[in-house]
């Protein structure tokens, strides 16, 4: 395990400081990768796209995190009092057990002109730009992937919040009812505070998912068109296995490792404190 897990992580960091001939190269790989327009595209910044993988990952988190968190929480609360909720939960959870590579195909299909439901829906509304194949156009490709990932991932927060709700004693709600609290007050004063410990799990796991995202990008857009939907993990694979630049790939991998650590440390601290 040490050999297959710990050593490769350190080796990656080491590689990121070497030149292609194996000499120590200082930070030159870093300046090269961070200066690459595929990673951060400063010139395009206010306009789009492509904005570079790092920016795309950030956009991904900014849209995906609140959407999937909110819909998961809302669904958990609604489904608590609904008959047959286990069937609905199972349906929503299918996205979590589907291979991501297949998830990418399904979302591509759903966003394809004439073939897919989303494009057909916008065609019906008469919104022409959105009735074209989303994954083939630079302005929409990233958003097709992000919305697709919300669809696939909402099951996670829903299941976590449902498990949390199940631990809240019924008496609390009965007491709130007797005191004349309405549904919003009950939510604000009882449900939400008691679910709060779970937020850190949901937030951390969701950001990690967004940082690691690779399969659906690979299969649905291949980072395109023209890099409009590329992400860090995909650029890392390109550097390592397409451009045969393992040192450049190691730089991106090290950046990803640092980002995941930054995201994970609050969760670890929280868990250790408990």
């Amino acid at each position, binding site marked *: 395990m040490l050999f297959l897990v710990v050593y490769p992580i350190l080796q990656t960091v080491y590689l990121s400081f070497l030149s292609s001939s194996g000499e120590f190269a200082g930070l030159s790989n870093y300046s090269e990768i961070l200066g690459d327009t595929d990673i951060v595209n400063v010139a395009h910044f206010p306009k789009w796209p492509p904005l570079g993988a790092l920016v795309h990952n950030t956009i991904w988190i900014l849209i995906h995190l609140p959407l999937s968190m909110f819909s998961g929480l809302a*669904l958990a609360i609604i489904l608590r009092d609904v008959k047959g909720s286990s069937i609905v939960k199972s349906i929503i959870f299918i996205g979590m057990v589907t291979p991501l590579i297949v998830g990418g195909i399904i979302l591509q*299909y759903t966003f394809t002109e004439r073939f897919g439901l989303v494009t057909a829906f916008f065609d019906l509304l008469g919104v022409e730009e959105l009735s074209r194949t989303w994954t083939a156009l630079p302005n929409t490709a990233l958003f097709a992937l992000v919305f697709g990932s919300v669809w696939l991932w909402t099951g996670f927060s829903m299941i976590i919040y449902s498990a949390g709700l199940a631990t809240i004693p019924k008496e609390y709600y009965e007491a709130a009812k007797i005191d004349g609290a309405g549904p919003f007050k009950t939510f604000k004063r009882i449900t939400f505070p008691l679910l709060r410990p779970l937020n850190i799990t949901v937030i951390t796991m969701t950001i990690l998912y967004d940082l690691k995202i690779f399969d659906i990008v690979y299969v649905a857009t291949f980072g395109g068109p023209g890099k409009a939907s590329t992400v860090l993990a995909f650029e890392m694979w390109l550097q390592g296995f397409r451009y045969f630049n393992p040192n450049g790939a190691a730089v991106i991998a090290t950046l*990803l490792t640092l980002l995941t650590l930054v995201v994970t440390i609050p969760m670890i601290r929280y868990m250790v404190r408990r």
Partner: protein
Amino acid sequence: MKTTKTTIILHLIAWGVGVLWLLPFLGVFMASIRPYDEILHGWWILSPFTASLSSLAKAWTDPYYPLSRGLLNSFIVAVPSTIIPLFTGALAGYGFARFSFRIKSYLFLTTVLLMALPQQSVIIPLFQMMANLKLIDSYLSLVLVHSAWGLPWIILFMRNFFSTLPIEVEEAARVDGASDWKIFFRIVLPMALPALASVVVLQFMWVWNDFLLAKIFIYEESMYLATQRIEYVGREQFRVNWGVLSAASIIVMIVPILVYVLLQKYYVRGMIGWTVKG
């Protein structure tokens, strides 16, 4: 009166969302079981509706990348990648639960970090390592890496489970003269079946659904796993044949979905134990 009205609205919302979430899956399913001409203008147009197995058959027997072979290959990788860490993890977890108490925080930390780290952090050295060992294009590389990555959470999960078991049963057996091994295999493991089931479901799905590791370790086309074949099946010269591609998707996803449907209870339990409680 008011409550019934709210209840009805809640039910409508819940079932509406359920249907909405199902639609993309329904779409690929419909595309996979109907002739290509019928889905050209949307799978939701139901007249005419002809059920046909031709797309599924095409994906299954594709001349270059048959999914039949892909499923077989995926099983060849997923079964040992599940069983090896299951047994070593259960054994180690039992040891940690009964014979050592200091390991918990170390194990816990490793597991959390491993869950957090993207595979991208390690695949360059892993690729170089496997190339040096001549294990590229060998399933052994995949089995080794999947087992190594599975072990920490399995050990932690099993350790937590074993420490909830009453120790009295084991002590009674020991008084009767049973050895540690006998106690583990005859008494402890049978009691641990639900936890073992959770491990099997989660680890199997993790391995089955993997794409990146297969992509970087396996280059021989006849050895491609099911997830690797998706990007080649149904791609015709001037168009994507969504019928065949949908059929391929259905074939690849049906295995984890069946596992989930049959062992849902264990999946959710494992998932929650592994994230919420840590």
